[in-house]
């Protein structure tokens, strides 16, 4: 297994896909890329999850939710929080990005684009409401640790942008 590969037992994929981020309920933890491995060790499922941001209060809840979902499927489990390799927004799947957009959160761009947006005021983040690129950064920090606040200058809609993390 290389550093960025996931190692998930095929029997568990469907169960884990039903667990979502409590702060972004449309996004499955699998599509977010926080589950790094889930394997059977002597009938117990060992799950490794990695935090998006260190202070993310959702991690404890996600751990509990995984335990609950596995229990309902008849499996005992142990959850481990791992820090290495560090989570990156690259691990959000295409399906996850789509879910974010539909929910009204602009999905992360790449690191260079992020710098241009957050530092140099370039207009490349698309409004999640009308699709216009005429958007303005309101603040680099938003309603949760992983988001920045934007506003569309055309339709005036305020929206969140999921910050790029590499």
């Amino acid at each position, binding site marked *: 297994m290389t550093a960025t590969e996931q190692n998930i037992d095929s029997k568990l994929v469907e169960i884990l896909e039903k667990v979502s981020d409590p702060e972004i309920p449309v996004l499955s933890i699998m599509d977010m890329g926080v589950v790094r491995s889930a394997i059977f060790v002597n009938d117990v499922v060992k799950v490794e999850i990695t935090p998006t941001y260190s202070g993310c209060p959702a991690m404890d809840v996600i751990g509990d939710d995984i335990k609950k979902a596995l229990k309902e499927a008849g499996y005992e489990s142990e959850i481990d929080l791992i*820090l290495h390799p560090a989570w990156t927004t690259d691990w959000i799947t295409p399906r996850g990005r789509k879910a974010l957009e539909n929910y009204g959160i602009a999905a992360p761009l790449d690191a260079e684009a992020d710098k241009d947006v957050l530092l140099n005021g370039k207009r490349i983040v698309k409004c999640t409401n009308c699709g216009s690129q005429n958007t303005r950064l309101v*603040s680099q920090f938003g309603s949760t640790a992983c988001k920045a606040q934007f506003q569309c200058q055309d339709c005036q809609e305020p929206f969140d942008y999921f910050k790029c993390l590499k």
Partner: protein
Amino acid sequence: MKENLYNYILGIADNSLILGQRLGELTGHGPSLETDIACTNISLDLFGQVRSYFQYAGKVAGDGRSEDDIAMLRKERDYKNVLLVEQPNTDFAYTISRQFLFDAYHLAFLGELQKSTDLTLAAIANKCIKEVSYHERFSSDWVRRLGDGTEESKSKMQQAINDLWVYTDELFHQTEADKAMVTEGIGVDVTQLKNDYYKYVSEVLEEATLEVPDVKYFQKGGKQGIHTEHLGYILAELQYMQRAYPNMQW
């Protein structure tokens, strides 16, 4: 127990703990909604980082003490944070100057800690540095904006930078634990970060049209547990629940 390693971890984590607590005071009191949310987001990041460090310190101690025990159940002299981070919020010029002077150091420090031979510390640093880059972007941006702003914002920023400058030199002092950890390839030699730090900070101040203070005498002591009077007040609040309801748990 590996005492030097334990003390070394606390030396790093206490800076984030106390600065996080200071920024937390701004919850609902920031000068604008966006800056309020930004400062408390940074606070949350720092507390998250502290948890990783203290969980590891608990393992190193090996006597069952938890992250909460380490955070809450120590006396003032046992906190090893630098004096800079315990300075009061005062006004937004002070808050943002303190943040910038610390972030610039923090970023450079984590850059080196990523190379530690201690894989847990390296992993924590690798995680934290991504968050701290955002902190530094935010604080340096505000230094420029307020320094190169109105006459009033400029003079307030200059005052804050002048007052806080005396606490910067301590960032580059080595403790006994530091020296031992550097020798083992675990710790960062902070003395090596000093020149680049002052060079970078001076560049930003120049862009902000602020003057670099000319100070000959610097304050120190935090790393040895000798604090300014402010830390006592911070701990009074931080440890309140534990004193009111000993051994309480969330």
